[in-house]
């Protein structure tokens, strides 16, 4: 009866026992995998762990690289900063792993390898005690039976008594062990919440680690970004004009000035300059060379088409066209004015609305193109030709409409805007331009006529004297026509031998000429 009782009692405990074994196995596995996640070696001291981390090795390699490249190299600087950051990340990681190891891994290990096995050991111990008790009890029962049938009652009674004592002792031991075991088991399960908590702690620790790493990275990022931005050797191609000028401290964009200077040396008499395409590989090389301020440009003096191509390419790759998106409509409207004189004035007004940097670069370029057009007898690039091939690089519409719209926007329109500006460059921009703004670009061996290129000669700038709005008094666009008509009158009279008339109105003519010249 007692045995049965014990077994029914045992049923609940047996379930608990099985679950406990399960808990042991899964905890063991979890521990094993967690250890595998650690990058450091488990059980070693902090310093050694830190040294062994892959991040530390990375940081070391970066710092070495930084030292070798030196301070003047951007890559070197960046490697040093990055290496430092990686080192700090490595410390964080080490801290985190130490923490995990102490708080979670060790306790988990304790649970799986010590606590539960101890309880299970106790369970086995109990089984043994139960057996002991059973056998003692059997012996005692046997003894009591033999008292009834036996003869030597006294001796038998004494033996039975001693056996009874053994039974009592065994039962006592068993009961003790059983109670202890039950207590431990219930204890274990009452602490399940504590054991489960390790997993919360694991995630908390990981979150904490990542947060700390993130904070660290975020504190480093602005510095390293600032370092990156402060580097002036950024490519000019594809960079906004204002940004490029500001960063390089220039007035005229480097590619524009470099190309113009080179073309002034060797390109002015080249047939089809800006029209004939350059070799693609040469063009690529020159563009890359212009992006890198330390490069040598001498070799390109002999290839004006590549230089012209690079200039076109630079203008085309600007995020915003040199003549700006904002003024696109105004340029178009100005070019649509039917009266030629009024059209010029409208263009002039629009031109003056260009932002400062754009205007300076535009002026520089237009002055150069006008100079190029002067040589059109040789290079065949008349203002109209230049406008056709270069115009689409100076102004384009922002909105990407249909293909037909784009075509309309890129070709014909722009030509009617650019051509008159090149034609009348000296009316738009009367002041002379010194093309050698920064003095960076000159031929390797300067030629005697070099000087002429640097200060453009005064050419027939007085042929067209149109009024600029608000700058001169007098009716719009009257002067050139009046001038030519007077000359015509004089010539016709001369031809008709009307000397007396000429003499008669001599003073009048002189007077009119003076007005014109003024």
């Amino acid at each position, binding site marked *: 009866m007692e045995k049965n009782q014990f077994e029914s009692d045992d049923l609940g405990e047996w379930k608990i026992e099985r679950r406990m074994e399960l808990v042991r196995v899964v905890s063991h596995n979890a521990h094993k995998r967690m250890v595998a996640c650690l990058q450091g070696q488990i059980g070693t001291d902090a310093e050694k762990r830190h040294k062994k981390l892959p991040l530390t090795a990375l940081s070391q390699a970066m710092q070495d690289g930084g030292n070798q490249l030196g301070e003047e190299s951007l890559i070197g600087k960046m490697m040093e900063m990055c290496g430092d950051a990686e080192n700090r990340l490595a410390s964080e990681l080490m801290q985190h792993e130490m923490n995990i190891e102490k708080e979670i891994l060790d306790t988990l290990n304790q649970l799986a390898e010590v606590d539960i096995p101890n309880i299970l050991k106790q369970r086995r111990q109990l089984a043994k005690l139960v057996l002991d008790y059973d056998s003692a009890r059997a012996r005692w029962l046997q003894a009591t039976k033999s008292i009834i049938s036996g003869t030597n009652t006294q001796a038998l009674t004494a033996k039975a008594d001693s056996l009874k004592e053994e039974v009592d002792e065994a039962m006592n031991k068993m009961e003790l062990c059983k109670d202890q075991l039950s207590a431990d088991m219930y204890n274990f399960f009452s602490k399940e919440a504590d054991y489960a908590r390790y997993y919360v702690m694991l995630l908390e620790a990981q979150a904490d680690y990542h947060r700390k790493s993130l904070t660290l990275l975020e504190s480093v990022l602005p510095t390293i970004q600032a370092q990156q931005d402060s580097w002036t050797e950024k490519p000019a191609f594809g960079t906004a004009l204002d940004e490029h000028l500001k960063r390089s401290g220039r007035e005229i964009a480097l590619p524009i000035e470099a190309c113009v200077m080179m073309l002034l040396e060797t390109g002015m008499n080249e047939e089809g300059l800006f029209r004939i*395409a350059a070799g*693609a590989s040469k063009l690529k090389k020159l563009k890359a060379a212009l992006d890198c301020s330390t490069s040598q440009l001498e070799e390109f003096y002999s290839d004006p088409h590549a230089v012209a191509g690079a200039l076109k390419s630079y203008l085309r790759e600007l995020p915003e066209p040199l003549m700006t998106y904002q003024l696109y409509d105004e340029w178009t409207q100005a070019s649509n004015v039917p009266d030629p004189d009024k059209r010029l004035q409208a263009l002039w007004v629009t031109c003056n609305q260009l932002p400062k940097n754009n205007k300076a670069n535009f002026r520089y370029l237009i002055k150069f193109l006008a100079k190029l057009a002067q040589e059109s007898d040789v290079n065949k690039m008349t203002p109209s030709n230049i406008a*056709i091939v*270069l*115009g689409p690089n100076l102004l384009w519409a922002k909105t990407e409409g249909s293909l037909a719209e*784009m*075509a309309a926007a890129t070709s*014909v329109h722009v030509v009617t805007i650019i051509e008159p500006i090149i034609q009348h460059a000296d009316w738009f921009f009367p002041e002379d331009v010194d093309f050698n703004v920064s003095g960076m670009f000159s031929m390797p061996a300067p030629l005697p006529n070099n000087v002429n290129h640097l200060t453009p000669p005064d050419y027939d700038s007085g042929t067209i004297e149109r009024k600029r709005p608000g700058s001169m008094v007098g009716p719009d666009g009257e002067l050139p026509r009046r001038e030519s008509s007077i000359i015509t009158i004089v010539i016709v009279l001369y031809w008709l031998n009307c000397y007396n008339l000429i003499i008669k109105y001599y003073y009048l003519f002189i007077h009119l000429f003076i007005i014109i010249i003024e």
Partner: protein
Amino acid sequence: MREYKLVVLGSGGVGKSALTVQFVQGIFVEKYDPTIEDSYRKNVCEFISLQCELIRLLIVCLQEQFTAMRDLYMKNGQGFALVYSITAQSTFNDLQDLREQILRVKDTEDVPMILVGNKCDLEDERVVGKEQGQNFARQWSNCAFLESSAKSKINVNEIFYDLVRQINRKTPVEKKRAKKKSNCILL
């Protein structure tokens, strides 16, 4: 009547317009004006079959500023004349990219095409050898190749006739109902 849309492509100044004007009007233009957009038509009665053929020519410049339209031209064109000048190496080198672009837009290897080395009257200034042109054409899965001169009227008609022949071979006459025009645009 069948319509052929031929596209003439090449770098600036290689003589696309000159070839076209020579073909269409029989004159040599001395002007050095870059073409923005131009179209020509020509009836070719004496040509291959006895029915009148109308050829529409489209001339597209390689200048990078006109790239926006290039895809469209390529999509609509049926035959392509890729022109370089035998006096300028760079105009020759650029054609490889151009061919690849055409094949990409057309999405097939089999596009009626002819490689043309123009200005062959300027033998003194030659820098691109005839061999080079032939080799190039061979690499382009045996594309047709001609050296021409718009000025001296050498091989001008042949360029366009060859293209028309290639188109006829590729799309025989029964498909003609769909297309009824031809034009030519100078860029």
